[in-house]
């Protein structure tokens, strides 16, 4: 096997693929990237059996063939070379990679054991702008649970209805939901996309524009955008019926500037205790929200955020991180906070945008 290609292209593909290799695999071949060269292109594949990726790049193929090389090593070498083009050649069991000023010989791994990447038939599919899908997942993904006790909460829920795609995630302490428009495909059943794999997909989507095609069946979800094919298993389970816990009416509503809120939360974190506790007092009389954090070993801080408030005064405690998290998905200038008093979840929204909301439970001390 022998081929030549542009360094930047190969490096980009390897950098993406290497995130999909399994580093501590039982099966050594899963720690490697599979390169197959034929007919003017090179296909890179990597998988950890949870999800997998396949990237095609253009290349001048001088000899067809297949090889598996340890992903981390290939990536490490390529990310440090200079020059425009690189030549790759398999000699016996060694892969020779030649760049302008550096040459490396890498031991390869027998590639016969490299698994097939699952294909999903195009029967059931939808498509969206890649930036939309990325925004949907990114707006909620951080809420997914990291504990394996409830696998269904380790996921980003995706479903489509009436031409809109909804993404939601919760770890049962907070919950976020984001809606984006769909391009094709009106109704999509509930798909539980593992949050870790969804984060990888986001990183792929960051680098490309255009429409992304999503194919799914009961167990697997695949995305196709440009030259990148990405596939992930789906979690088998039922996502909690979260819509019925969203409060409909509120005793207090406050609108504040996002920047003020974010800055206050950031500096409050310096004084927060180990639970990141922040107390939030909504004071209609003072037209302000008072935020306090206190750590007996450090000291305490009180921040006042000016607000337009309707309704009653309210005071609650929150995990400050949970409040700050909500702001990363809000891009508008002001934030609307809805409360029903102590012990009840707090609803946070972009004041100008109805497509996102965030629900956080207060602390009970």
């Amino acid at each position, binding site marked *: 096997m022998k081929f030549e290609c542009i360094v930047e292209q190969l490096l980009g593909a390897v950098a993406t693929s290497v995130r999909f290799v399994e580093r501590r*695999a*039982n*099966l*050594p071949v*899963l720690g490697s990237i599979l390169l197959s060269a034929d007919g003017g292109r090179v296909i890179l594949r990597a*998988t950890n*059996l*949870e999800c*997998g990726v396949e990237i095609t790049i253009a290349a001048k193929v001088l000899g067809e063939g297949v090889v598996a090389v340890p992903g981390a090593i290939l990536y490490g070498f390529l990310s440090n070379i200079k020059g425009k083009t690189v030549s790759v050649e398999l000699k016996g069991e060694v892969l020779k990679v030649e760049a302008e000023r550096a040459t490396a010989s890498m031991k390869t791994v027998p590639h016969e*054991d490299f*698994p*097939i*990447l*699952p294909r999903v038939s195009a029967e059931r599919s939808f498509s969206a702008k890649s930036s939309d899908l990325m925004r949907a997942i990114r707006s909620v993904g951080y809420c997914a649970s990291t504990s394996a*006790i409830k696998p269904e909460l380790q996921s980003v829920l995706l479903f489509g209805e009436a031409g809109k795609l909804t993404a939601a995630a*919760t770890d*049962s*302490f*907070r*919950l976020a939901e984001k809606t984006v428009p769909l391009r094709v495909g009106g109704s999509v059943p509930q798909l539980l996309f593992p949050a870790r794999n969804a984060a990888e997909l986001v990183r792929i989507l960051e680098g490309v524009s255009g429409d992304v095609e999503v194919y799914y069946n*009961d*167990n*697997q979800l695949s995305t196709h955008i440009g030259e990148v094919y990405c596939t992930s*298993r789906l979690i*088998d389970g039922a996502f*909690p*019926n*979260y819509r*019925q*816990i969203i409060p409909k009416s509120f005793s207090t509503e406050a609108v504040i500037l996002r920047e003020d809120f974010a800055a206050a939360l950031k500096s409050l974190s310096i004084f927060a205790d*180990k*639970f990141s*506790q922040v107390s939030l007092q909504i004071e209609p009389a003072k037209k302000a929200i008072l935020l306090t954090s206190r750590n007996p070993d450090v000291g305490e801080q009180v921040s006042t955020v000016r607000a337009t408030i309707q309704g009653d005064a309210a005071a609650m405690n929150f*995990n400050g991180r*949970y409040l700050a998290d909500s702001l990363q998905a809000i891009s508008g200038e002001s934030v609307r906070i809805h409360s029903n008093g102590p*012990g009840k*979840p707090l609803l946070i929204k972009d004041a100008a945008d109805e497509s996102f909301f965030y*629900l956080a*439970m*207060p*602390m*009970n*001390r």
Partner: protein
Amino acid sequence: MTTTKELWENALVELELTISKPNFNTWFKDTHITRIEDGVVYLGVPSQFARDWLSTKFHKDILRSLRGLSENIRAVEYVISRGPKKTAEEVVRTSAAAVSELPLEAVHQSTNLNPRFTLSSFVVGPFNELAHAAAQAVIRKPGIAYNPLFIYGPTGLGKTHLIQAVGNHFRQNAERKVYYVTTEKFSMDYVSALQSGKVQSFKEKYRQYDLLVMDDVQFLAGRDKIKEEFFHLFNYLHDNNKQLVFSSDQHPNVIQNLEDRLKSRFAAGMVVSITPPDHQSRLAIVRTKAAQHNVILPDEVLEYIATTVEGNVRELEGALNTLLIQFEMRGEPLELSDAKTLLRGMGSAIKKTVSVQEVVKTIANFYGVEENSIYEKTRRKEVVRPRQVIMFLLREDFRISFPTIGDKMGGRDHTTVIHSCEKIKNDLRSDSILNQELHQIRLMLK
């Protein structure tokens, strides 16, 4: 013939020899047979990756090893299935507990009852008819008929089934609030309420119910704070004519480390026991369970199960399930001889004989006295009691004659033996510790 689980385990043993270890560990982890139909084995695999790879790379090996084990198998299909649910891990929440949870679960889990347990699926026989009747009375006149209803009996006889059935019937009237809780859960709730300073809402939560069903209350023993909380809860519900239903493995009076005030309260309504089913009932149970699975087994097979598997209903179900899986796999009727081979080792039909020496040894050990001192003519207090217990058990459980017992116990007169047995029998009426001891000794002798 073997069960599907054994079949797959045997096949895996063979496959492990032909496939490299890394490959085997990667691809055969979490696989299992979901079912066998018309000679087709449906193999459950964890993901599409595994399905694609197994079916292209290892299909031949898998089919060969399965065929080697069972000739009826002619094909293998792969299905994606997460496999039998792993038992839920106990979660001990630490710092995260400081934040309350969104009520994602509470919405459809307000009663904690398993809808599978109803009175119609409960087989009634002489061994449990009183308990069943009491349960029905409670359903008809909650809070009035028998309050509390206390059901006790050994494990696996349907206590949980019966008390949950009460809850399920009670729940049909939507306005009434029912809650089923195990004592373990109750304790955990209380402890976490204490830790998070929410004792008040804990109290409110449990006081709102019209029917509280509590399982395995014997575990209350020894937990002072929880017992106290329970005591107040009991009084509150009882005073407000709310129905209480309890289960336990013992009569309230013999539960160790339980205050008299609780014992007397448990016993205040109706205390009813479920005993192990007699032969006729066992037969009826096996027949009903088989019918629930839509399988008709020959009478002699049913008879065999009922005779072989003595004692508890859960074991009966286990035995029946073993047979049903076979039946499903083979698709042909089961004969008595099949049942016999399959259930070998399952039953306790042959009562184990225990030698006198063994009994003496076990009991001497239990009380921490020298075995030899039992046979000696000493009247030291610490030896006399064990000796009396030995004689009592030899008489009651092993039906040995008084003179023989006397003889074996170092040549004592049979009247001494009679006296000992009477003494222990009398003490048992009032001494709950002795009751416990005997219970444990009997378990050790089994």
